[in-house]
C-alpha cells in the first residue's frame, strides 16, 4: 500500500477519497479541504473523520450543552470545569476530587464482557489523567426485558465485565443501577462512573507546552483494536485487493491498567510531566491533536516510533487505533531519565514519539515522510456544529392517565407488595453487586444497597465523599424537562439522606438518534432542565458525556439522563444507613404524598405509562436537604423514597437487617411523589424532629414503630421471611 503523503496530496488534488464511508458529510469534507487548502492525506482524513464524529465532536449536542456554562452557578468549589478530561472540585483540607460518568453502550451490545470492561477502563484513565488516584467506581446499567433471551446474553456478560475489570484494578464498586425496559433491548446502557482524589497541587491538565519538550507514549502496545471503519482507508481505496479485517472490538487488559495507574501516580508524585492525556476514543489522533491544541506551540510526531502489537498496521490505523491502557505525556528532556526509570520499575513500555515544536502545526511523519500537517485546533475543537431540527414528539399528545388499582390493606396489599418487590426493577440486586469488590482500599463507608456510596478520604480527619447516580427514564419520557430536574433532585436527596452535602454534578445523557427531531427535543429539554436546576441549587456541572443513536430502527430508548451527584461529609462516622437495626424506633415519613402514579414502577407493572411527570419543587427539596443535614445526629436510619414509592421504601428498610415494623398509613402506598424520605428516630428524639419539620416547613407524619419479624401495614401482615424470599430469588432465577 502506497503511503499517501502531504506532497502527493498536493499534486493529486482530484484523487477519490472515501470520506463518505468514514461517516463525513459532503460539506464536512469540503471544509477539511478549505482548512488545508488541498485535499487531506489519507491519514489526515482518518483523523478528521474520527475527531469530527458525533462521539468525539459533540456536534449535535454542543449548542445545547453550552447552557451548563452559561447558566453555571457561582461556585468556589470548582477547580477545573467542563472541557478537561474530568472536572475537579475542592472538598476542603487541601483535597480535590474528580469524578465523571461515561457511556460504553454500543460496544457492550456487540461484546458485553469486553465492552463493559473497557468502559470501566476508559473512565478510570480519564480520572487518572487529572493527576488523581482513582478510589471508586459505579455502574448505572439499563437492559431490555429481564426475561428476554438476549438479556440473558447481555446482562451476565456486562456484569462480569464491569467486575472483571474493576475488581482487578482494586477499585471498590460502591453503587449503580440495574433497570429493565424493553426499549433497551438491542441498546443496553453501560454507564461507568469513576471518582478520584488528589491534593490541589497535583492537578494535571492535557496541554503540550514548551518547545523541545518530549511527547512520550506509555502503556500497552498499539494493536488493531477498535479501528473499524478506518480500515477502509487501508484497504479499499489505496490497496489493491481485499479489505483488511480489523476488529472493532477492544479487549481490555486490567492488569496492564493497574500497573499503568501505579506507574503514573509515581510519575505524578515526582512531578515529571508538563501535560498528560489518556488514549481513549480516536486514540493517538485525539491525544496528539488535543494536547497540541491546548498548548502554546505545535507538535511533531514520528509515527514509526509507536510500539506496535501488530506490525502490519498502516499509519492511518496507528492514528486511529483504540488500543486500551495507553497514555501520552509531555515531559521536559531533563526529566526523561527519571520518567523512564519509573516505567522500567513497573515494566511499562514507554517511547518518545515526538516533540513540542515552534509554530502552530501538528506534523506527523512516517519514516521521514510527512503524512499529516494540520492546525491541531481544527481537528480537536473546530469540528462541525449542528443545530438539529427540534420538534415536540407526537406521542405526548396521546398519553392517558395512569389508572391502576392501589390496594391499601389486607391480602390485596400483601400480594401487591410481594409482586412489586419481586419485579426485576425492584428485586434485590445482590446477584449483580456481589460480583463486585466493595471492600478493596479499605475506605468504603457505604456501598450498595445504601442510598449513596461513601468513601473515606482521610483516615485522620474522617473527611469523606458520597456519590449517587440516578435517572428516571419514564418521567423523562413523559416530560424531559421535569425528568432531568427530578433525577438531579433524587440524586441530591440520596446524598443528603446519608448525611453528605451535595457539591457538584456530572451526567451521562443517553438518547436515541439526534437526527430524529423528537429525540432532539427530548435532549434539549433535558439539558435545559438540568442546567436550570443546577443553577437554582447552586451546583456546578463538572463534566459529562452524551451517547446518541441508542435506538433500534425507529424505536429510541426512553430518554435516559443519568445524573451523578458528589457530596461531602466532614465526618464519615456520622453517616446514616438505610436499614432499621433495632426495635422500638419511631418511623416517620418526611414530605407530602400526592397521587403520582404516572411513570411509576407500579403502573409499569400494569403495562401503563400514564401521562405526566411530577413537577420538581426545587425550593422544597432544598429545604428537605437542609433538614436532612441538620437532623443527621438523630436519624437511626434514613431511606430516600423513589421507585416503588412508600411501600418499596418500607420493604427495603425492614429487609436490610430483618427488623420489622407495625405501621398505619393513610396515603397512597404506591405513588412516587418526589421529595420524600423515611426516617427512624428514637422516641425521645421525636420533639427534635418536629422542631426540624417546623424550621424547614416540611410535613412529617409518624407511621408507626419498628420491631418484630413482619412488615405490618394497616392490617396487612407481611412476614419478612416471605418478603425476603420474593425479593431475593428473582435474579438468581433469571440469570442462574
Amino acid at each position, binding site marked *: 500500500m502506497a503511503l499517501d503523503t502531504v506532497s502527493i496530496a498536493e499534486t493529486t488534488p482530484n484523487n477519490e477519497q472515501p470520506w463518505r464511508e468514514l461517516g463525513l458529510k459532503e460539506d464536512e469534507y469540503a471544509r477539511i479541504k478549505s482548512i488545508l487548502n488541498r485535499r487531506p492525506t489519507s491519514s489526515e482524513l482518518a483523523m478528521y473523520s474520527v475527531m469530527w464524529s458525533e462521539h468525539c465532536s459533540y456536534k449535535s449536542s454542543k449548542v445545547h450543552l453550552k447552557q451548563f456554562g452559561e447558566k453555571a452557578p457561582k461556585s468556589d468549589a470548582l477547580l477545573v470545569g467542563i472541557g478537561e478530561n474530568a472536572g475537579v472540585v475542592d472538598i476542603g483540607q487541601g483535597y480535590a476530587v474528580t469524578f465523571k460518568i461515561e457511556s460504553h453502550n454500543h460496544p457492550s451490545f456487540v461484546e458485553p464482557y469486553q465492552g463493559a470492561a473497557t468502559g470501566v477502563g476508559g473512565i478510570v484513565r480519564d480520572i487518572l489523567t487529572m493527576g488523581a488516584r482513582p478510589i471508586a467506581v459505579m455502574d448505572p446499567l439499563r437492559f431490555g426485558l429481564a426475561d428476554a433471551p438476549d438479556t440473558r446474553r447481555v446482562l451476565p456478560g456486562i456484569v*462480569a465485565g464491569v*467486575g*472483571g475489570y474493576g*475488581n*482487578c*484494578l*482494586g477499585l471498590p464498586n460502591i453503587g449503580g443501577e440495574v433497570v429493565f425496559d424493553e426499549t433497551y433491548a438491542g441498546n443496553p446502557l453501560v454507564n461507568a462512573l469513576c471518582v478520584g482524589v488528589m491534593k490541589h497541587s497535583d492537578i494535571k491538565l492535557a496541554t503540550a507546552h514548551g518547545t523541545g519538550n518530549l511527547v512520550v507514549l506509555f502503556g500497552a502496545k498499539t494493536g488493531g483494536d477498535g479501528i473499524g471503519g478506518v480500515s477502509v482507508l487501508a484497504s479499499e481505496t489505496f490497496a489493491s485487493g481485499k479489505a483488511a479485517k480489523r476488529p472493532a472490538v477492544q479487549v481490555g*487488559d*486490567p*492488569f*496492564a491498567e*493497574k*500497573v499503568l495507574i*501505579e506507574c503514573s501516580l509515581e510519575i505524578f508524585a515526582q512531578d515529571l510531566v508538563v501535560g498528560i492525556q489518556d488514549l481513549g476514543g480516536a486514540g493517538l489522533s485525539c491525544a496528539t491533536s488535543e494536547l497540541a491544541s491546548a498548548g502554546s506551540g505545535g507538535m511533531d510526531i514520528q509515527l514509526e516510533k509507536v510500539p506496535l502489537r501488530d506490525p502490519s498496521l498502516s499509519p492511518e490505523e496507528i492514528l486511529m487505533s483504540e488500543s486500551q491502557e495507553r497514555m501520552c505525556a509531555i515531559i521536559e528532556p531533563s526529566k526523561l531519565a527519571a520518567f523512564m526509570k519509573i516505567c522500567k*520499575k*513497573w*515494566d511499562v513500555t514507554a517511547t518518545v514519539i515526538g516533540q513540542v515544536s515552534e509554530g502552530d502545526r501538528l506534523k506527523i511523519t512516517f519514516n521521514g515522510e510527512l503524512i499529516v500537517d494540520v492546525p491541531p485546533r481544527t481537528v480537536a475543537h473546530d469540528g462541525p456544529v449542528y443545530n438539529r431540527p427540534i420538534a415536540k414528539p407526537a406521542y405526548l399528545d396521546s398519553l392517558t392517565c395512569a389508572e391502576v388499582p392501589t390496594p391499601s390493606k389486607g391480602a390485596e396489599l400483601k400480594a401487591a407488595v410481594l409482586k412489586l418487590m419481586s419485579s426485576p426493577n425492584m428485586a434485590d440486586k445482590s446477584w449483580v*453487586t*456481589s*460480583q*463486585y*469488590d*466493595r*471492600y*478493596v*482500599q*479499605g*475506605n*468504603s*463507608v457505604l456501598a450498595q444497597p445504601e442510598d449513596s456510596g461513601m468513601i*473515606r478520604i482521610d*483516615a485522620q480527619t474522617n473527611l469523606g465523599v458520597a456519590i449517587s447516580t440516578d435517572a428516571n427514564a419514564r418521567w423523562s419520557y413523559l416530560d424531559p424537562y421535569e425528568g432531568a430536574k427530578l433525577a438531579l433532585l433524587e440524586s441530591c436527596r440520596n446524598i443528603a439522606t446519608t448525611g453528605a452535602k451535595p457539591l457538584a454534578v456530572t451526567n451521562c445523557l443517553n438518547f436515541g438518534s439526534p437526527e430524529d427531531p423528537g429525540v432532539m427535543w427530548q435532549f434539549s429539554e433535558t439539558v435545559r432542565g438540568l442546567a436550570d436546576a443546577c443553577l437554582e441549587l447552586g451546583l456546578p456541572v463538572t463534566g459529562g458525556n452524551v451517547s446518541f443513536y441508542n435506538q433500534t430502527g425507529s424505536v429510541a430508548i426512553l430518554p435516559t439522563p443519568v445524573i451523578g451527584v458528589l457530596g461531602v461529609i466532614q465526618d*464519615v*462516622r456520622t453517616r446514616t444507613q438505610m436499614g432499621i437495626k433495632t426495635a422500638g424506633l419511631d418511623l416517620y415519613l418526611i414530605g407530602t404524598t400526592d397521587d403520582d402514579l404516572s411513570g411509576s414502577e407500579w403502573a409499569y407493572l400494569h403495562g401503563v405509562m400514564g401521562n405526566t411527570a411530577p413537577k420538581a419543587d426545587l425550593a422544597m427539596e432544598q429545604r428537605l436537604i437542609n433538614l436532612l443535614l441538620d437532623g443527621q445526629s438523630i436519624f437511626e436510619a434514613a431511606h430516600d423514597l423513589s421507585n416503588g414509592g412508600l411501600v418499596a421504601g418500607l420493604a427495603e428498610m425492614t429487609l436490610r437487617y430483618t427488623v420489622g415494623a407495625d405501621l398505619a398509613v393513610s396515603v397512597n402506598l404506591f405513588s412516587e411523589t418526589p421529595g420524600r424520605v423515611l426516617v427512624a428516630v428514637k422516641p425521645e428524639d421525636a420533639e427534635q424532629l418536629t422542631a426540624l419539620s417546623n424550621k424547614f416547613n416540611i410535613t412529617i407524619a409518624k407511621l408507626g414503630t419498628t420491631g418484630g419479624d413482619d412488615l405490618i401495614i394497616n392490617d396487612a401482615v407481611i412476614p419478612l421471611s416471605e418478603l425476603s424470599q420474593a425479593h431475593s430469588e428473582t435474579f438468581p432465577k433469571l440469570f*442462574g
Partner: protein
Amino acid sequence: MRIGVVTFPGTLDDYDAARAVEAAGAQAVPLFHASDDLKEVQAVVLPGGFSYGDYLRCGAIARFAPIMSSIITAAEHGFPVLGICNGFQVLTESHLLEGAMIRNKDLHFICKDQPLVIENTQTMWTNGFTAGQEIVIPLKNMEGSFQCDDATLARIEDEGRVIARYVGENPNGARNKIAGITNKRGNVVGLMPHPEHAIEDLTGPGTDGLTFFTSVLQTLVGR
C-alpha cells in the same frame, strides 16, 4: 515489631494489609516483589489481589518473584507468613501449603461477608482466637475453591491443619468447606477470606479480622 507486606504487580490489598498490621500495633514495612531483601522484618503478609493479572493461574507467576525465594527459605525455617486470598494462592503454588484454588463453583466473583469457624488456634496467626470461635470477615475472589486429592485432604484433616472453615452454605465449593490451612509447624497460614477488611466497624463487617494480626505479634513478643 516489623511486619513486611509484599507488593507484586497487580497486588490490590497491600495498603489494607499494612493498615491492619499497624492497627494491631506493629510497623508495616513495604516489600517489593523485585528485590529479595526482607528488610529485617519478623513476619510477612502476602496480600490479596491479582498478581500479574492472575491470567495464567492465580499466584503462578508471583511465586517466582525474587522476594518469594527469600520468603520460601525463611518460611522453611519457621518464619511467620500469612497469605490472604491471592497470597494463599501464592503459598500453594510455592508448595509451602498443600492444595490449590480453582474457580468458584458458580463461576462468578463473590464478594460477601462470610461467617467462619476457627478450628486450629495453635498457629502463629490464630493463637488469639478460641477454638470453635465464629467470626465474620469478607470473602472476595473468583478462584477461591480449595481443592486437593483425597489423600492430601485426609492428611490435612488428621493433622488438624484446617484453621478456618466456612459456616453455613459452602460459598465456593471448597473441599470440606476449607477456608484456610496451616503447615505443620504453624508458621505458614493461608486464608481465602480477608481479615484485613474486618478491622474497624466503619469499613467492614466488624473487627474480627484484627486477631490474626495481634496473634502474630503475641507470638513474636513471646519469642
